[in-house]
């Protein structure tokens, strides 16, 4: 028999809607999973079981009263800990915000509440979303449920691990340079970064404002589409939120991809790619061809500079976005007799090493005398890169690439080498720099049994075709999600 925690979001929603089970049953099943797993993988930073039960009972009460609590009624959803949540901590994985308690909800959190979701808790992350392994969390790393010696990826590692281990069917993450897709790939699940502007960033603690997007993590494409549909759409509180209407995702119907053009960007298949990744992604490409898609090679030469551009733009914006953590209004405060002393000690104690590194890098790139050579030039290259991306995606509908060059690396493996860690983002930053939507899907396992991710990218606001191709692939490959083995007691 399928356990409740094994079910996906749509089937849980259906069971609850038809009153075959209660929202409380579903919440209890998942709370039990959290209890048995979380100590082993540290996916959640905060779970308040009493609050979870309260929310679930409220959904049940609404159903009993004949109301419709919404499309996600009773479905447990986890939130990355950089989404402002009323009445809960929002630490961003940082000592700086350890005691911060927001009195307001992020836009996506409001949307989830309106949709009837039960908020399970806040998940672990690299401090301020800066990292690719969740090892930069001030509260300790999250471990990969498939191999606890390995990383989940990051920065939304807690969300990815929670979904993969069945602690929740759905989670939200944020993706600035790959922070949803890379952990999704490492944990064998679906992770999607929407078009910049499709989802309001109001209440997402900013890392790099021009790159950050909130997106769904789920165990299949349809669940990810469902969650995206709930959170997408214009929000007047975010000036960069698009006023376009949200496309209808997964209307159903044909799985054939006849007439769909898929581009294979050569630059994404460089020498650095692990052979197993290359082979597995190649097989996925063949599967898409069998569905009738036209496959053609394309070139995006400027994307080779993606990491360089990204590691100027993102830290620059971050250095400014993180200036507000100053010890005055809501952060940790260090000692200091003058306000200057107080600043440097608060920020010195509150931020971890990677955050400091990036603040320094960004401050340098913006500082007098260096702006034109670094930030100014990087923005120009970024603009050219985007123009190039748009030219290419006029000719093809989606681009296909691996999500990561390798499978999940070992915990600690890259901690002493920041540059090596940064290079892990090489295949994901393009979508962020170009504002384009991208999705990572599980497409196989390595010989060690570690998941491998397939990445699809589309032109901006191309979510419809992106999800259509993703769903068709998922069906063709008949990939059923396999949960990790239970942790030994």
């Amino acid at each position, binding site marked *: 028999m399928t356990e409740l925690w094994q079910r996906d979001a749509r089937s849980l929603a259906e069971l609850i809607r038809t009153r075959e089970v209660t929202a409380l049953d579903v919440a209890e099943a998942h709370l039990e999973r959290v209890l048995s797993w979380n100590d082993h993988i540290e996916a959640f930073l905060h779970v308040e079981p009493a609050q979870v039960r309260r929310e679930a009972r409220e959904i049940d009460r609404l159903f009993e009263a004949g109301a419709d609590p919404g499309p996600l009624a009773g479905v447990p959803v986890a939130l990355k800990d950089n989404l402002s949540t009323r009445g809960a901590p929002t630490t961003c994985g940082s000592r700086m915000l350890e*005691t911060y*308690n927001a*009195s307001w909800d992020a836009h996506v959190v409001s949307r989830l509440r309106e949709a009837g979701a039960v908020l399970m808790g806040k998940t672990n992350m690299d401090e301020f979303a800066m990292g690719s392994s969740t090892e930069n969390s001030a509260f300790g790393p999250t471990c990969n449920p498939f191999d606890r010696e390995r990383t989940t990826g990051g920065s939304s590692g807690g969300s990815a691990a929670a979904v993969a281990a069945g602690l929740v069917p759905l989670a939200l993450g944020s993706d600035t340079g790959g922070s949803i897709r890379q952990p999704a790939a490492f944990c064998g699940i679906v992770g999607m970064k929407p078009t910049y*502007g499709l989802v309001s960033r109001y209440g997402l603690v900013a890392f790099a404002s021009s790159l950050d997007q909130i997106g769904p993590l789920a165990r299949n494409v349809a669940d990810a589409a469902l969650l995206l549909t709930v959170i997408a759409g214009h929000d*007047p509180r*975010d*000036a*960069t939120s*698009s*006023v376009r209407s949200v496309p209808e995702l997964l209307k159903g119907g044909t799985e054939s991809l006849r007439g769909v053009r898929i581009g294979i960007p050569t630059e994404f298949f460089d020498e650095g790619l692990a052979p197993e990744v290359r082979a597995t992604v190649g097989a996925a490409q063949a599967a898409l061809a069998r569905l009738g898609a036209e496959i053609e090679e394309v070139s995006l030469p*400027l994307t080779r*500079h993606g990491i*360089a*551009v990204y*590691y*100027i733009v993102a830290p620059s914006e971050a*250095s400014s976005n993180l*200036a507000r953590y*100053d010890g*005055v*209004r*809501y*952060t*940790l405060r*260090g000692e*200091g*007799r*003058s*306000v*200057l*002393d*107080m600043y*440097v*000690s608060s*920020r*010195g*104690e509150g931020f971890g090493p990677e955050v*400091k*590194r990036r*603040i*320094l*890098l960004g*401050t*340098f790139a913006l*500082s007098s005398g*260096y702006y034109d*050579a*670094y930030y100014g*030039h*990087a923005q*120009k*290259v*970024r*603009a*050219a890169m*985007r*123009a190039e991306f748009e030219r290419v995606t006029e000719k093809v509908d989606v681009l296909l690439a691996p999500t990561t060059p390798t499978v999940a690396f070992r915990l600690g493996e890259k901690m002493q080498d*920041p*540059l090596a860690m*940064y290079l892990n983002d090489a295949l994901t930053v393009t979508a962020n720099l170009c504002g384009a939507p991208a999705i990572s899907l599980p497409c196989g396992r390595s010989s060690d049994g570690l998941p491998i991710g397939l990445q699809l990218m589309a032109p901006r606001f191309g979510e419809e075709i992106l999800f259509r191709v993703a769903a068709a692939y998922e069906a063709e490959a008949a990939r059923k999600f396999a949960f990790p083995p239970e942790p030994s007691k």
Partner: protein
Amino acid sequence: MPIDRDEVLRIAALARLRVSPEEAEALAGDLDRIVAHIDSLREVELPDDSGSLTYFDQDVHREDRAGESLSRDDALKNAAETDGEFFLVPQVVDKPGGKTRDDRATRSGGDDAGRGGDR
């Protein structure tokens, strides 16, 4: 652009980060390697029309309507130090003339006078 310990300390001061001399040494090494990688960008030659940075086809504004503010308790509740009315911080500067005053009455605007250049 090579980055050494002094440069790290200069940037850290701008960013209001306390960095010990040992940390500065390590950070200089990290940043130097990162910047060396980033410097590869300088060789990128851009077409004349390298595209616009704005991909917004919309202006988003707000109508001028006032809404609710937070209660003072909510505004202050996360602060390290308050007196129930104000956020408290260590003394900013010693002002000549003594009196309690708002030193910022005319401070916004900063040092931009005569941006027009030499005169």
